[in-house]
């Protein structure tokens, strides 16, 4: 992969301004260069009063993504939501937190509903109105997978955003196909020598999306909000099927402190466990470099769902396996500068 270029943080390192370079709105740069979220007149597509838990990563990621899309489309946006936390905590009758045209149909059909929305807009000559589908990892990688793949294969003009908190949190933390190996959930209790999802196999929907050859696939994290915005903006500039997979920590499901949401997301990226990259038409085109590499233990230790790794006799081998996963990612996605890409 010679065309892999660095993105986001690492390129900003050389920018002239220094103070708070990675903050949301560095006062030393022009309004335009700052994050949408720095702007006093941001759309707040997902506004106050929602019922998400304290420190909810999904609520944060969703506001960033949809606000960025709102800016990119000049507010001409229709959002489709799969069943899940995001849907439940934003729209309990009689209140909704959405300030964007929004529809929820079912758990497994968000991609298809969005396809219908996009088709309706085309046929009505409102091609300027764009459709976004969003769901959690359950609604995306499991039950909604068929509709998602169909939408990809038809290259429908839909941006699908998956907020990945690595389990079914809405129903009380059951494992999904996006749950990392060794993580404890209600359905993968920390019992026996190999608790949690198995090592070796697994389901990378971003890679599966790439296999469809769709115009744009990206992963992002609430740890790098500039990057997330940039990718959503870029995606909205492209027609056809697009997929963005956003890593959003869940204090409840991960057994972490509410205030650690962004910190944990950051550690996931900096350890290499969550690779942040972009792909176009099936080819990896860019990866966000690790700034300060950390061992996976720094990411795992603050989370109760991994507590057994640090108490049980089998812990050390499993931690080593997780470290191996991170190291593989670093090589596969060129996450370190010395990975020899341009």
């Amino acid at each position: 992969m010679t065309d892999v270029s660095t993105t986001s943080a690492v390129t900003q390192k050389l920018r002239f301004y220094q103070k708070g370079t990675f903050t949301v709105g560095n006062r030393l740069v022009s309004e335009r260069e700052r994050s949408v979220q720095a702007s006093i007149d941001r759309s707040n597509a997902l506004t106050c009063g929602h019922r998400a838990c304290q420190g909810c990563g999904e609520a944060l990621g969703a506001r960033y993504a949809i606000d960025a899309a709102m800016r990119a489309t000049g507010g001409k946006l229709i959002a489709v939501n799969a069943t899940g936390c995001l849907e439940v905590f934003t729209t309990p009758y009689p209140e909704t937190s959405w300030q964007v045209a929004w529809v929820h149909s079912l758990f497994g059909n968000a991609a298809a509903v969005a396809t219908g929305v996009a088709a309706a807009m085309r046929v009505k000559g409102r091609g300027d109105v764009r459709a976004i589908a969003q769901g959690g990892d359950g609604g995306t990688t499991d039950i909604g997978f068929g509709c998602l793949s169909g939408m990809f294969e038809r290259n429908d003009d839909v941006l699908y955003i998956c907020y990945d908190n690595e389990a079914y949190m809405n129903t009380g933390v059951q494992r999904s196909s996006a749950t990392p190996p060794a993580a404890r959930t209600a359905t993968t209790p920390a019992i026996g020598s190999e608790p949690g999802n198995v090592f070796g196999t697994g389901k990378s929907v971003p890679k599966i999306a790439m296999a469809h050859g769709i115009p744009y696939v990206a992963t992002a994290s609430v740890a790098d909000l500039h990057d997330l915005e940039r990718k959503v903006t870029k995606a909205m500039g492209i027609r056809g099927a697009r997929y963005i997979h956003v890593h959003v920590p869940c204090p409840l499901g991960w057994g972490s402190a509410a205030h650690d949401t962004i910190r944990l997301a950051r550690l996931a990226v900096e350890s290499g466990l969550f690779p942040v990259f972009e792909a176009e038409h099936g080819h990896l085109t860019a990866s966000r470099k690790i700034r300060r590499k950390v061992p996976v233990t720094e990411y795992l230790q603050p989370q109760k769902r991994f507590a057994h790794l640090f108490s049980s006799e089998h812990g050390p081998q499993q931690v080593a396996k997780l470290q191996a996963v991170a190291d593989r990612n670093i090589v596969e996605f060129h996450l370190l500068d010395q990975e020899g890409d341009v």
Partner: protein
Amino acid sequence: MDHPFAITLDTGTSLANHTGSWRTSRPVYVDRLPPCNHACPAGENIQAWLSHAEAGEYEAAWRVLTQDNPMPAVMGRVCYHPCETACNRAQIDEAVGINSVERFLGDEAIKQGWKFSPLETESGKRVLVVGAGPSGLSAAYHLRRLGHEVEIFEAGPLAGGMMRFGIPKYRLPRDVLDAEIARILDLGVTLNLNVKVVNILETMIMRGFHAAFLAVGAHIAKRAYIPAGEAAKILDAIAVLRSMEGEAKPLLGRRVVVYGGGNTALDVARTAKRLGATDAIIVYRRTRDRMPAHDFELEEALEEGVMMKWLSTIKRMDDGVITVEKMVLDATGFPQPTGEFETLEADSLVLALGQDVDLSLLNGVPELNIKDGVVQVGANLMTGYPGIFAGGDMVPAERTVTVAVGHGKKAARHIDAWLRGGAYEPAPRHEIAAFDQLNAWYYADAPKTVRPMLEMARRRATFEEVTQGLDETNALYEARRCLSCGNCFECDNCYGVCPDNAVIKLGPGNRFKFDYDFCKGCGVCAQECPCGAIMMVPEAI
């Protein structure tokens, strides 16, 4: 809008749901004391003037700076910058080059001819300042700005004190010093040179001063008894350095030995080199790590070819030959003689063993408490005699220009209060912003800018300034390396990272406020605040 019941809802209606009630602890914006400010002997508001500088507002920065210190160009050269030692940035990469930015601002001010703004009111009080050294000049400046009439009596031929007679040109060019002194005098401070105050009380009464600030410095070289033969050439450091300012340069010969371990010893040795000495050897009785001189100055000296003789004391000097005894450090780190001797060839020996204060002007002043050769003062720098204050090298303190300047400011404030029949109450200090309260992630990696140095050949041969200044570009870069420890710099992080949109942005310069109707108290804002300006406070139950 009219639409189907319950399944379809009007946007934004959740604003009716005040989730603030979920909160068990609330975020609160705080201001913490930046370690640099805390460490500055001159009490400069460093972070404040840096924040102007990093926005390119240099004059504004300079004005904030000079509210506390009238001589940034001098400070930017001679200050040992404890601020940088304290700087939190040192724990990320390297300390912010505060001193170099200060020098840039000082030089810029001279270049642009910035003047202090004229003062509004005259108090009608007269204050006498004795000594035109850093402390005296600082006091004069501050007193004048407070509306008092100030006269300086200086015994020497020129103003500047140790800045002129103790610090060599290659560290502090005289045109810089003169410029900053002149700017102070322009405020309307009267300077009387070559006037030695012999009796302070008499002078005050006769000249009608309501108060006096004494800052005569320490100019009397300490002597050590060294048996010496005929024609043994023994001088003291202060005299050598002072004579550098006169017409006749001191004759030190080709082999010069300097006795002592302070900065003055280094200054003399480096001066000797520049005067053409082939060998300049410093003899010190302890080891390098115990040397009072600053290490970077020792480094520069060694670079310039100055030689060190550690763990040695000088026993005697005969014509051209010095006998030294080797020492060892005992358990307490105190040097003990070994009885081993050796000799050094030397044309001259310069003693740099520190200085004493000439306190003769205080004769006849009652209620004074003098201890260890210095005047004891209260927290308000007032001597035992009401109305007479003292500072700088003549009071118990570290003897640096910056400390002296600090004394000047502090004394001025207390004198002002005293003249108004009150007492000056310094504002309560905030808790210091410690590194672990910051979130360093958000600051880009930005190594310190290295100040260019004069090339070696010229350093050895001339008195040109050794350390060069920063240009506009890297001064700006350096200023922007500041982390703004403990004080919001409006990076919008809290505003951006709140999962509940519970932060209200008040617009440029007005920072933010929390919307406690919706804040659930998750604490992400506090965790992700780069500069530690948010504190989580438990809600009362």
